[in-house]
């Protein structure tokens, strides 16, 4: 009998990384790896699909609902497919008073997508987020791991044009 392969699994390098992460915690506390592993699978798959969550549940030997509960609690896990670049812009007070609202309005217009949407060319997804701990360098947004700070309308144009290339 052939057992069906799960549709999603870690690439060999990520599998190694995942196994290393498991060693961070005492015996029997492997559920602690849940958040890092969800980041890892999302980095691989682009988003956190139900299949990806089921795979992680299986990997950690926990119930799928325990993964759903966690993945829906935190804001960084994309529960829907996203564009190539996810732009997470800070909408909180300190960035707002430094002109964030105008800059972000321009950003949305420029890429042709509103909050939570993906641009028609599937390149950009816009996600408003709360404070990114870069208040003195605002307005700011984040794309994957990179912070873009001191944003102005001109700077947004440059960044987006660069990413479109």
């Amino acid at each position, binding site marked *: 009998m052939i057992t069906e392969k799960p549709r999603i699994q870690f690439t060999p390098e990520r599998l190694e990384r995942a196994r290393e992460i498991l060693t961070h915690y005492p015996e029997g506390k492997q559920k602690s790896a849940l958040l890092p592993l969800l980041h890892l699978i999302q980095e691989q798959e682009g988003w956190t699909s*139900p299949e990806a969550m089921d795979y992680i549940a299986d990997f950690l030997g926990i*119930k*799928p*609902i*325990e993964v*759903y*509960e966690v993945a*829906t*609690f935190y804001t960084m896990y994309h529960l829907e497919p996203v564009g190539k670049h996810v732009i997470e812009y800070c909408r909180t007070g300190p960035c707002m008073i430094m002109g964030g609202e105008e800059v972000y309005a321009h950003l949305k217009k420029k890429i042709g997508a509103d909050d939570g949407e993906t641009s028609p060319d599937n390149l950009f997804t816009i996600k408003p987020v709360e404070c990114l701990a870069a208040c003195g360098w605002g307005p700011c947004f984040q794309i994957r791991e990179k912070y873009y700070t001191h944003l102005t309308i001109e700077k947004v144009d440059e960044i987006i044009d660069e990413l479109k290339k």
Partner: protein
Amino acid sequence: MKVTIDNITVEVEPGTTILQAARKIGPEIAPPAMCYYEPLKASGGKCRACLVKVTAGSEKDPRPMPKLVPSCITQVQDGMVVENTINQQVLDTRKGIVEFLLINHPLDCPICDQAGECHLQDFAFEHGMQQTRYEEERRTFEKTDLGPNIQLHMTRCILCYRCVFTADQITDGRVHGVLNRGDHAEISTYLEKAIDNDFSGNVIDVCPVGALTDKTYRFKNRVWFTKPVDAHCDCDKCKGDVTLWYRGDEVIRVTARKNQWGEVTAFICNKCRFERKKTSDWVIEGPTKVARHSVISANKYGANKIVPEFARRLAASQYKDVKEGRNLEQLSIQQLPEERFKQLVAPAGESAVAGIRSIQNWADDK
């Protein structure tokens, strides 16, 4: 050790919580509990309905505690002095808690199967205000089924987590949980999975409101028209001790037995709950001693006082007109301030006002 609650001193074992000590004294001074559930480990501390004032921490350290404390999870100390029903701060706070729990809870009691045995209804009657101050849009969800026999009406949920603890502690594979966060949090299986477990039905009994209801009982009757009877059977899955709820000579519902605090004394299996609906399935023990009175069974809803309020809201719900960009249907499920009510309903036309009057008159006659 000794603890004094509302000037009544009682002797309790170490490890007893304030709430348990108060229950020992009696229902008159026991704080309300919307999330705490003694049979479920780790329950409590969330709804904040049972907050009390500790005016003296203990004999040794008689300083008062700075904040109100959740009585359900705070253990008594020897010589502790607690104020519950005699403390204005506690009562004011409780009023606030009712209001918080109600702002996103539909006032659909007239069509809710839980009415009459709803803890939120009782809580609101005891501690709530007649009017709401909430004018914003309410949180609503689609109804979903958790398997063939359980309906989840998330709009009514107050997120007490009891059903989650139940699934964790008395079933062997929890598939539902609390998803999302803040006021978007919801009880769900995420992927609309059915809860398939022999003891899943117990989530219905532990639910303090009408969020989880028994589909085999849905709209069958109002609970205050039914006759509860204790019965047992020889069940290979559970103890088989249940309460049968009769309408005439028909068993329309089976539940676990509950104590005076509304807590299940022995969880029952789904077969007993959903399938054994004939008198011949059971050995009848006798009428259930109803130790806990709901506001309805105690006839506390004076017709003049309450029904017109209810009727007004009900009548307003008939008009789906939208004024000032707000949905009247949404507004109807709250008690509008008189002035706002006139503003919103009067423009809907004479027939609307007439309809309300007729219902009010009907209510006044009752």
